[in-house]
């Protein structure tokens, strides 16, 4: 059994790592829950954003926040453009999974073509910075990521709950025809939401560039766990996605500290199975 300090540190690192799961899960959860589109290319878009931030930072010496200011709106545009294709070809839930898988594979190939399959690391002065709190270390970048993810999750949740547009999106997800009869232009709102989802991928990508080592195949590393997070957090619920992300992150990290790193994926999917057995209507 590891010491209390080690467990505490594992818990902190896990929650912080879970912030990334949550941030990646949010955009996915919104489009799956509210538009019934399962967007696998979300991961590829996040990595595309990460590579662009890396490129701007290393070649042009652009500060990451300025890169983000450029990349995030661009991603919004890409998300809306992608939705135009979904709309044009009347893509349904299953087809969206297959099509966005292909889009992700193409993006991966594109990234590999331009940046090669080599591992890339974006070194910044603050990448190793951490705050010392008692016996624990809190890495600054991960903390910033969690703050950003928390603000986004909370803001998006309020937007869906409190505003007319948010309520219209939720109503449309339940009964699009009746929502339309009351004036909801689902098509227009779907473009907005797709753009927002992709913009979140852009924000996640910025942090991926700063925190992780980049390689084209890394697109797929988070796929499984983020899917579990999306479902555990309940589709269409950004706050749920973040909390589920942190729960999974913490459980994985603690399991790794107590048992072995091989246990990490077992934990996330065990939680998923327990949730679905406990309430089969959860999805």
């Amino acid at each position, binding site marked *: 059994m590891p010491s209390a300090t080690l467990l505490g540190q594992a818990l902190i690192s896990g929650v912080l790592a879970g912030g990334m799961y949550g941030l990646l899960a949010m955009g996915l959860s919104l489009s799956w829950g509210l538009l019934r589109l399962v967007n696998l290319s979300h991961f590829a878009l996040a990595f595309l954003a990460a590579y662009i931030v890396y490129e701007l930072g290393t070649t042009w010496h652009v500060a990451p926040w300025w890169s983000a200011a450029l990349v995030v709106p661009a991603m919004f545009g890409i998300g809306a453009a992608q939705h135009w294709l979904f709309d044009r070809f009347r893509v349904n839930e299953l087809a969206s999974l297959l099509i966005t898988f292909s889009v992700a594979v193409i993006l991966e190939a594109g990234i590999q073509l331009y940046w090669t399959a080599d591992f890339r690391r974006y070194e910044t002065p603050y990448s190793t910075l951490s705050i010392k709190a008692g016996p624990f270390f809190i890495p600054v970048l991960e903390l910033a990521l969690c703050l950003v993810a928390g603000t986004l999750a909370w803001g998006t949740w309020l937007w869906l709950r409190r505003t007319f547009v948010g309520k219209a999106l939720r109503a449309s997800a*339940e009964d699009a025809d009746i929502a339309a009869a009351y*004036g909801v232009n689902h098509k227009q709102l779907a473009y907005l939401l797709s753009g927002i989802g992709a913009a979140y991928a852009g924000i996640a990508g910025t942090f991926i560039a700063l925190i992780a080592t980049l390689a084209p195949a890394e697109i797929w590393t988070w796929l499984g766990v983020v899917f579990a997070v999306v479902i555990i957090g309940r589709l269409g619920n950004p706050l749920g996605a973040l909390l589920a992300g942190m729960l999974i992150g913490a459980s994985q990290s603690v399991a790794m500290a107590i048992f072995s790193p091989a246990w990490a994926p077992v934990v996330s999917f065990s939680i998923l199975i327990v949730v679905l057995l406990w309430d089969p209507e959860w999805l």
Partner: protein
Amino acid sequence: MLLEVRNLHVGYGDAPALWGVSLEVDTGEIVSVIGPNGAGKTTLINAIAGLLRCRQGELRFDGCDMTRVRAHDYCNHGIALVPEGRRLFAKMSVEENLELGCYRAAARPARTRSLEHIYALFPILRDKRRQVAGELSGGQQQMVAIGRALMARPRIVLFDEPSLGLAPAIVDDMFDIIARVRSEGAAVLLVEQNVLKAAGIADRAYVLEQGRIATHGLPADLLQQPHIREAYLGV
């Protein structure tokens, strides 16, 4: 004339459901459409609400050609639907359902006033306003469905089988509410299987059979016709 339907044809895929239906509703009128199951009553009302597209024929509302209007703009002309089976947004709260009713830009500024009006009409909904709509009883859900329609500040309310699946005592309440909707200035088009109730409240009535208007006139006159008495009243 507020609502004019002329020679309307509507279908699902290759299967036609309405064959040249014509009807009219004037301001301040309650008009009933009665007919057996499968006659096309819901199809007719959904076409007038913009949920289904017309194949052929005219659909005019206050002189405007509605066949050119996009589905989500129908409500902006003042058409509100109380759909069959209520079709509430079941996972959303009662108040959110009502608020969706005033989603259209012209009804939004009156949100608070309209909500107060609905809660005065259905006091039980004020107590349940934070509750998820799917958890309400059938009668209460019907109140939400009617409230949602009234929140849109409509010029005509389309009721599709409002009494379906409700206890008899509540059915009477529903018809009182329908009469009240008219007295507040909106026209009513009512589709009902409860022929006596529908005829009792209506100024005029149409009989829809197999996708066609079989006959129309004053409710009292229709109830005298042997064919109607036999088919709908069993006497």
